[in-house]
């Protein structure tokens, strides 16, 4: 299968991107300044991410659609306000995670942002679960960019007036060059920021205007270090079909109202795990010293017993040290528990820590 290119491919090239293949797309891993500089620029200023490889699934419908989607997602969609977003997951009957996603209520139905590697499978699953009752469009004609960091609001508002008034995890339609663009105040870096859904033919122009205002393109490399410092999961690494949202320590994203009813796919397992606890759970891990423990690194307790595995690990440029997360047996998941990480045959001391590694306040606003 030929690798696909996003509508920003030419711009990436103009900015000296190094490309990698990711989920069937040619994506920029970094630009000339490198991952550490790109990471810091996002934290201190404003970075633009091309996330057009991600799926933008529009599902059209009203009251019936809400009822049907509540059988799938553990969310209180009935009471979700128009243009408000929630983080959620598509699960199988055993509460294993097919994908994690952001779902937003729009005036015509719902917009769901899906991971690139999962989107086609998600579409198939959802189409079957919804029994073809609703119009579903996995829109390839729209691009998706994120602008993240403290200067993002000011910069984007200069180009598209009014976005600065959006609250965190809410969105709306705006206009750019007479085109309808859907913008949400959200992101995946631990910074204030926005995600912008825009027609493919206009994304290059919009991105260049944002660059002219002082923002910079940031590659997938820095996206990974930013999200890991923010304690956010990456599907296929920290989340997969062998892990449930409770094990992934994401129970905050499950609606209490919906748990009490327990009528969504995977609810039996979720309720059981919430009541009885889990055997393994996702935790933050801070290595002592500078050693970097990457994905698949084995975790041991103080008696040298194998108790888990790292699922994401790298160097955190803002923390200025190594950061990781992984799954350990529940009894070793308490903050400050001493553990050991086996890297290149040697065991290195580390401890369980709370997430995120790096914290900044989002713009919350008043509901």
């Amino acid at each position, binding site marked *: 299968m030929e690798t696909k290119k996003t509508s920003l491919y030419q711009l990436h090239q103009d900015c000296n991107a190094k490309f990698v293949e990711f989920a069937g797309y040619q994506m920029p891993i970094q630009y000339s300044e490198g991952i550490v500089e790109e990471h810091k620029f996002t934290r201190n200023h404003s970075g633009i991410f091309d996330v057009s490889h991600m799926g933008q699934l529009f599902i059209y419908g009203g009251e019936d659609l809400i009822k049907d989607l509540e059988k799938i997602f553990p969310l209180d969609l009935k009471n979700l306000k128009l243009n408000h977003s929630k983080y959620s997951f598509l699960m199988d009957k055993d509460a294993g995670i097919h994908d994690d996603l952001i779902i937003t209520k729009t005036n015509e139905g719902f917009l769901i942002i899906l991971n690139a590697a999962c989107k086609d499978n998600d579409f198939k699953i959802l189409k079957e679960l919804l029994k073809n009752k609703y119009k579903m469009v996995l829109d390839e004609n729209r691009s998706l960019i994120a602008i993240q960091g403290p200067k993002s609001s000011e910069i984007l508002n200069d180009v598209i007036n009014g976005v600065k008034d959006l609250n965190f995890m809410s969105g709306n339609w705006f206009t750019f060059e007479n085109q309808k663009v859907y913008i949400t105040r959200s992101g995946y870096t631990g910074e204030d920021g926005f995600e912008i859904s825009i027609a493919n033919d206009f994304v290059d122009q919009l991105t260049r205007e944002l660059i002219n205002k002082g923002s910079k393109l940031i590659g997938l490399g820095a996206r990974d270090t930013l999200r890991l410092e923010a304690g956010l999961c990456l599907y296929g690494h920290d989340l997969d079909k062998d892990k449930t949202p409770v094990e992934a320590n994401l129970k905050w994203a499950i609606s209490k109202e919906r748990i009490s009813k327990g009528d969504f796919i995977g609810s039996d397992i979720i309720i059981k795990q919430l009541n009885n606890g889990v055997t393994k759970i996702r935790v933050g891990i801070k290595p002592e010293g500078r050693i*970097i423990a*990457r994905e698949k690194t084995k975790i041991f307790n103080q008696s040298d017993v194998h108790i888990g595995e790292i699922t994401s690990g790298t*160097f955190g440029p803002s923390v200025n040290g190594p950061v990781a997360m992984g799954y350990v047996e529940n009894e070793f998941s308490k903050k400050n528990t001493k553990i050991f990480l086996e890297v290149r045959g040697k065991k290195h001391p580390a401890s369980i820590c709370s997430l995120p590694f790096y914290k900044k306040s989002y713009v919350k606003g008043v509901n």
Partner: protein
Amino acid sequence: MSEVKYSKEHEWIKLDGDVATIGITKHATEMLGDIVFAELPEKGSNVEKDGTAGVVESTKAASDVYTPVSGEVVDTNQAIVDDPSKINQDPEDSAWFFKLKIKDPSEMDTLMNKDDYDKFAKETSA
């Protein structure tokens, strides 16, 4: 002092008497990206030609560092362990990795000179 030689694993080596200073090339640092971790061989240990003698890690991945010749490690550069970003800044001079008392000077003959290495680096990264 002899000329600087280069290995196919992208190390440089400079011989002064029977002590060789070894580091990684600028080309290697450009391929790796930002280096955020470095591990060096222990002083007093013996390393074999083409064997592992350290590790560098970028934000993306870990890579082994090999020694282009055999010998005993007589010195290591703690400065690059404390601040690995120095390797990106000055890879072919102050950010050297380790010094070896070499065992067999003829091993130097198997290595490339600067022109050959530059050609090799260009071909392999194309």
